[in-house]
């Protein structure tokens, strides 16, 4: 089961697509997942991340079958 990676708002524009799939045998951190997918794109600052729709910090682990979301600070209301 690949890791489904989703991008929102200005990050989607920056990356140029709304989704990626990441196939990785062992659990890796959110930060490492970004680096695997975007070796030439430094980690945006500020950056928010969610695993399976729960906020996590960038050192949290993702594994097979997880959904990882990357997005900028939220601006609702």
């Amino acid at each position, binding site marked *: 089961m690949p890791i489904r990676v989703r991008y929102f708002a200005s990050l989607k524009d920056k990356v140029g697509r709304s989704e990626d799939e990441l196939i990785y045998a062992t659990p890796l951190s959110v930060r490492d997942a970004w680096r695997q997918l975007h070796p030439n794109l430094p980690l945006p600052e500020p950056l928010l991340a969610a695993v399976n729709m729960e906020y996590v910090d960038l050192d949290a682990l993702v594994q097979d079958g997880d959904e990882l979301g990357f997005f900028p*600070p*939220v601006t*609702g209301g």
Partner: protein
Amino acid sequence: MLIELRAEAFDPWREVQAYQANFQDLAGKFGATAVFVGSMRDFNQGDGVSAMSLEYYPGMTEKQLQRIVECAQSRWQLLNSLVLHRIGDVKPQDTLVLVAVWSAHRGDAFDANRYIMEELKSQAPFWKRETLSDGRQRWVEKNSDGYAH
């Protein structure tokens, strides 16, 4: 409790009235209803704004809103709560968000309403893309603190 994302314009006052009409069992039980309505301005950060689009994270946004309201219900004595938020294309004057809470007393109603609104602003995954009066588009990078004078 009702939490909904709305793709169409809505009248917040009618929504409050219609929702309240559905809980006759609470008639005479609540002494305080606190209502917050957030509307779209036609200006932001010194620029005219002619339109806006609200993106969200389907599934996560609803989950976070649910958590925020449940947290308010655990901290204050609330009899009922209503949260509506627009998604998609909006225009100036449109209502963006409605938060209404019903309680026996005003203290809980005021405090819970403000808590829900502040948490929504900082935790719920929504993102605003503005179209400025000159046609340029930009993402709103962060919410103001909301207390500018």
